[in-house]
């Protein structure tokens, strides 16, 4: 069966659902963050597939931007997690129940 746009989109959708599963079910902050990265990667794959099959390079430029923004977001998010860990000594979501530092 010839591989077309639909195949790539189905893979992207399934990957996105897996990342969403990680964010919803897992309790460790770092693994939740990894689920977020998985969702971003799924969106990237869908953008590159559309860019290829619609003869438009804008999708690939957008993926370039998304990778950069994801790198910046990971840096800031991990700095937050480190600061939180210093205060509360835990990286488990069920322990972090109050907004007060």
């Amino acid at each position, binding site marked *: 069966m010839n591989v077309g746009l639909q195949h790539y989109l189905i893979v992207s959708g399934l990957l996105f659902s897996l990342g969403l599963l990680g964010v919803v*079910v897992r309790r460790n902050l770092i693994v939740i963050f990894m*689920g977020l990265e998985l969702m971003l990667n799924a969106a990237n794959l869908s953008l590159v597939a559309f860019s290829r099959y619609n003869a438009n390079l804008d999708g690939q430029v957008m993926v370039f931007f998304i*990778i950069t923004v994801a790198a910046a977001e990971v840096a800031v998010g991990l700095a937050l997690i480190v600061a939180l860990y210093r205060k509360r000594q835990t990286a488990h979501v069920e322990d972090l129940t109050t907004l007060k530092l």
Partner: protein
Amino acid sequence: MPQFTDLLFYAFAGLALLFGFLTVVNPVSRNPVTSAMFLVLTIISLAGLYVLLHAFFLAAVQVLVYAGAVMVLFLFVIMLLDLKEEERRKLKSAILGIGSLAVAAIAGILVSTFVKAKPAASAVQSRLVEGDTAKLGEALFNHWLLPFEILSILLLVAMVGVILLSKKDLK
């Protein structure tokens, strides 16, 4: 006889989904380092898919930046926090069940939409775009120059924010 590129697509897609599943559901060990390693493998499989889509520069950037810098940062932080094996807290099966059900519903909606979609006429196949570096550079520095410059400011802001957040006393 299916084409070789089709076989490669199924191989890379299957690997990406398998490693993504192993990242999220970590049956091997309760260590987050194992999840990070599986995420690196997922990212590399996705780079293979980008090469199949003729996005060569993006595949290289993906491996260099995502797998080579972002995941290394993840591993640094995991080892800095010294998160040993996750405590064996009982995962409430109600949360697991409802969460999996909701995600399965979303996955079902997405996959059924993509299966039923009728792509445009096959004339699109004749003008597939090649994502080589020269064309991408032209697009990036002519049409998308303003977002490119704004991104550099964003990176600077992120760096300043990280330095500020990692001070000993957040006063």
